[in-house]
C-alpha cells in the first residue's frame, strides 16, 4: 500500500475490455460498435476511472459489462435518468449512455427528450436495430409500417419515429447518425460526440442478425451503399453516389437530388453546416423519404451552456452570496427561544 506510485502508462484498447464474456449472437452488429468504442476511449484523454457507461435493458444494454470502466446496467428505459444523477453528482465524469430503439425510444422516450432538452454533458449511443432484440423480435417504434413480427403477424400499423428529427424537436444540441459497419466513420462520430459540451445524441444503425437481418443492407452492402448513403461533413458539399455524381440542392424550402453531370454545376450543391438547425431539420426529413439518400454523420451541433455547468455555477453563486451553508445557523433561523 505504501508503494511509490508511478504515472500510469498510456492506455490502449485492451485496457477497456472487461473480463466478462461477450454474450451477443455471433455476427450481431453490437460487436462492431463495442469495438469502436473501446478503440476510441484511450484517445479521449479521460482517465479510465472517470468513464461511466450506463444502459437500460435490451441486447445492446449489456454493453457496460464488456467495458472495463465504471458501468451501470439499469432498468428498462431509464438509463438517461440514471445517467443524469451520476453526471450531476460528479460533473467531472465522462458519461456514456447505451440504449436501444426500444429502451431509448419506447419506454424511455420521455427521459430521452428531457435529457436532450436539459443539455447535460452526456453522450447517448442509441443502437437502432428497428426491433426488440432481447424479447425475441417484436416491432419497435422505429420498425417500418407493415412490418411482420411476433407481435404483428398481420403487419405493424405503427408509424415509426424519425430519431434525429425527434431529437431535434426535443431541442437536442448534437444530433448524429452512424452505422455499425462504418467503423472508421463511427470512430469519428464518437470522438466528436465526446468533445461536444452538452447532450450528444448518436443514432447507430445496427444489424440484428436474428430478428431483423438486413434492414440496413442497402446502406451497408458494398454494391449499393454509395448510392444510398450521404456522408455529411461540415463545410463540404452534400455529394453522394458511387461516382460522386449526385448532390442535394435546396429548392425553396425543399431538398432535391441533382445529377452532377456536365450541365448542373457543383455550385448548386448545398454545403453542410453543422450549426444550422434549419438545415438539420431538412436533412432529418430524408430518413424515410424515398428517392433520397440516408444521411449519416453530424446533422447538428451547437455548443450551449450545459445544465451541469449551470448547476455548479448556481451553487457557487449561492455560496458567494450567502456564505457556505452553516448548519447551526440554519437551525436557528427565524424566531427561537431558550428555556
Amino acid at each position, binding site marked *: *500500500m505504501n508503494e511509490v506510485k508511478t504515472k500510469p502508462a498510456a492506455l490502449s484498447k485492451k485496457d477497456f475490455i*472487461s473480463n*466478462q464474456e461477450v454474450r451477443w449472437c455471433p455476427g450481431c452488429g453490437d460487436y462492431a460498435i463495442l469495438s469502436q468504442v473501446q478503440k476510441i476511449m484511450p484517445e479521449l484523454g479521460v*482517465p*479510465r*476511472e*472517470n*468513464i*461511466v457507461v*450506463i444502459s437500460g*435493458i435490451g441486447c445492446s444494454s449489456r454493453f*457496460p*459489462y464488456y*467495458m*472495463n*470502466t*465504471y*458501468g*451501470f*446496467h*439499469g*432498468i428498462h428505459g*431509464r438509463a438517461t*435518468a*440514471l*445517467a*443524469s*444523477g*451520476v*453526471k*450531476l*453528482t*460528479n460533473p*467531472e*465524469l465522462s458519461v456514456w449512455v447505451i440504449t436501444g430503439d426500444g429502451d431509448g425510444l419506447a419506454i424511455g422516450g*420521455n*427521459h430521452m427528450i*428531457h435529457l436532450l432538452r436539459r443539455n447535460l454533458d452526456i453522450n447517448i449511443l442509441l443502437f437502432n436495430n428497428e426491433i426488440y432484440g432481447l424479447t425475441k423480435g417484436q416491432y419497435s417504434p422505429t420498425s417500418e409500417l407493415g412490418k411482420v413480427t411476433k407481435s404483428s403477424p398481420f403487419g405493424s400499423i405503427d408509424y415509426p419515429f424519425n430519431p434525429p428529427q425527434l431529437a431535434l424537436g426535443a431541442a437536442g444540441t448534437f444530433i448524429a447518425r452512424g452505422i455499425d459497419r462504418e467503423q472508421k466513420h463511427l470512430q469519428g462520430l464518437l470522438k466528436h460526440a465526446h468533445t461536444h459540451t452538452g447532450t450528444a445524441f448518436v443514432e447507430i444503425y445496427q444489424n440484428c442478425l436474428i430478428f431483423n437481418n438486413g434492414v440496413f443492407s442497402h446502406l451497408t452492402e458494398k454494391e449499393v451503399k454509395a448510392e444510398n448513403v450521404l456522408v455529411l461533413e461540415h463545410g463540404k458539399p452534400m455529394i453522394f453516389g458511387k461516382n460522386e455524381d449526385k448532390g442535394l440542392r435546396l429548392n425553396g424550402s425543399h431538398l432535391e437530388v441533382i445529377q452532377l453531370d456536365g450541365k448542373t454545376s457543383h455550385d448548386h450543391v448545398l454545403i453542410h453546416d453543422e450549426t444550422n438547425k434549419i438545415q438539420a431539420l431538412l436533412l432529418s426529413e430524408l430518413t424515410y423519404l424515398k428517392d433520397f439518400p440516408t444521411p449519416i454523420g453530424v446533422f447538428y451541433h451547437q455548443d450551449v451552456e450545459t445544465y451541469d455547468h449551470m*448547476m455548479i455555477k*448556481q*451553487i457557487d*453563486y*449561492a*455560496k458567494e*452570496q450567502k*456564505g*457556505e*451553508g452553516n*448548519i*447551526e445557523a*440554519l*437551525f*436557528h*433561523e*427565524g*424566531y*427561537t*427561544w*431558550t*428555556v
Partner: protein
Amino acid sequence: MAEDQQKISKTTEEVDVVTIRFAGDSGDGMQLTGSQFTNNTAIVGNDLSTFPDYPSEIRAPAGSLAGVSSFQIQFGSQNIYTPGDTLDVLVAMNPAALKVHLKDLKINGLLLLNSVNYTPRNYKLAGWESNPLEDKTLKDYRVAEVNMSELVANSVKDLNLSPKVINRSANMFALGFLYYMYDRNLDSTIDFITAKFGKYPDLAEANRRSLKAGYNYAHTIKIIRTNYRIPKAKFKKGTYRNIMGNQAVSFGLVAAARKAGLELFYGGYPITPASDILHYLSGFKNFGVKTFQAEDEIAGVMSTIGAAYAGDLAITATSGPGMALKTEALGLAVSVELPMVIINVQRGGPSTGLPTKTEQSDLFQAVLGRNGEAPIPVVAAQTPAHCFDAAYEACRIALEHMIPVILLSDGYLGNGSEPWRIPEYKKLPEIKTHKKTDPEDFLPYRHDEKTLARPWVVPGTANMEYRVGGLEKSEGTGNVNYTPENHQLMTELRQRKLDIIADSFPPVVPFGNSSGELLILGWGSTFGAIRTAVENALAKGLSVGHVQLTHLNPFPKDLGEVLGKFKQILIPELNMGQLQTLIQGKFVVKTEGLHKMKGVPFTQSDIYNKMVEMLKGLA
C-alpha cells in the same frame, strides 16, 4: 347571550390548554393567520401543535364548501401532542366555514364571525336553509358577530383602498381579536406585516390597523369578559423554534449529509403534500445541495440511484401516486445495494384520492409493495419535530448498511408544526460511510460482516472500475449469476441485512405500564392522539401501555416479547389495518384494530373511547 345587558368589567383568567381553529374561504388568508398566531404562541412559551387543512383546488369558488380552508392550533402549559379535538374558539369568516366546522366547537365555545359575509347568497351556497345568525343554529355558543370588513374600512378610510384589499385584511382583525383574548403582544405580527408588505406601505398600514382594530374591538365588547393567560409550558432545557414536518425532514437530510461528509442530492417531481421538501432543499444551494426537478417520479428516483452510485447522499420525496411510480426503481435500488432515502409524505388514497388530506395507508406499499423479494427498511416519523430525527435515522441506516430506506411521513406531519428543541449539530450521532478507495482485495459485492454493507466505490476512483446492475449477481464479484444456489444465497443475504439493522435499535420500552391489560401499539403520526389518550387513561388508573413504532421494517427484535406482556393489543391506524396485518403476520398474536378513513387524524377521544370499550368490565 344577547339578553345580558350588564356593564363590562374584564378580568384575566389562567387556563391550561386552548384549541382554536381559524376557518374561512381559501382567499381569506387563514393559513397565514394561523401561522402568525402560532409564532406568537411560541414566543409566549407555550407548547403547541398545529394542523392546517386546505382544499385541493387552488382557489375553489368563493363561498363554497369546497373552498373552505382552516388552520387549527392547540397550545398550553402542559405537553401538547395534538392540535386538539374540540374547539374553544372557532373563527368562521363565512357561512361555508361555519357549516364545515361548527360541529367541532364546544358547547359554550366562542364563535367569531365576520357578519358581512353572511348574506343570503352566501349562506345558501354553503347549504344553510336560513341565516344561521338568525335562526337557532348558534344558540349553544357564545357568538361574537362582527362586521369586520366595515370596522376595518372605517379604520383605513384615509388610505383610499379598494374594498377587495380591505376585505382581504379582515383576517388580521380576527387575529388581533384573538391576541387580545389570549393576552398577547402584537409586535411579532406587526414586524411580519412590515417585512411582507414592505414594497406597499398602504397595504402594510391597512394590515397593521386591521390587527389593532381587532385587538381593540375585543377589548371593548361585552362578550369577552375575560381574557386568558396560559402559563409557559415546562420545556426541557434548550433552545427552541417552531418547525413544520417537511422543514424538519429537510433539516435532517442536510445535517446527515454534513455529518457523513457527503453532498446532498435531491431528485424528485412535485406532488402535494411532499413538494415543500423540494422547495426547502432548493433554497439550500449554499449548502452544496443539488436539487434536480425531474420530468416525473421515475426520473426522480432513477437520478437518485445514479447520485447514490456516484457518491452523494441521495434523496427523493413524493406522495402515494408518485411512490407507486417509483416501485420498479426501488427494486433496482435493492439489487444494487446503494444507500438512499425515499420519502413518502402520505395522503388519502386510493389513486389521486384526497390529495390534501392525511392518511397512513401506504404502509403495505412501503414494506411489501415490490416485485420479487425486495426488502427495504422503513422508518416512520411521529410528530413534525420528530421528522428531523426520523430523516436523520433513515440516512444513518442507508449509509451504514448500503441500502435504500423508506421514510414515511404524512400530510398531517408535513404541514403541521410544533416547537422543536434545536439539537447541537456536533452532538448528533456520527454517521460512517463505506466509501473505499483502496483497490487491494476489492470486490464490489463482498459484504462487510457486521453491517452486511458492500463497499461504496464511486466512479472516479482509480483502479476499482466495476459494473453493477439489476440482474442477480454473485456474492463477492457482483458478476451476473443465475445459478440456483447463488440466488438463494443472495436472497437470504438481502433479508439478513434487514435483520442486522434491527440490532441497532433501542429497546422497546412502553410508556405507562410495561405489562398489563392493554397495549396501544401505534406508528407514525398517530403518536399525539394516542399519547394524549394514554395519559388520560393512566390518570384514570387504567392499566395501559403505549408503544409508538419508528421502525416498521424490520420491527425491533424485542417487540414480540413486549406484545406478549399485555392481555390485549389495540392498533389504531389511519388505514384499514395495515400494521395490524403485519404484526399478526409476524408475531401470530391476536390484535384489535381501530381504523379511521376520513382524511383527518385521530382525536384523542377516538382512541380513549376505544380503550375504555376494550377495558370495560375491568375494574
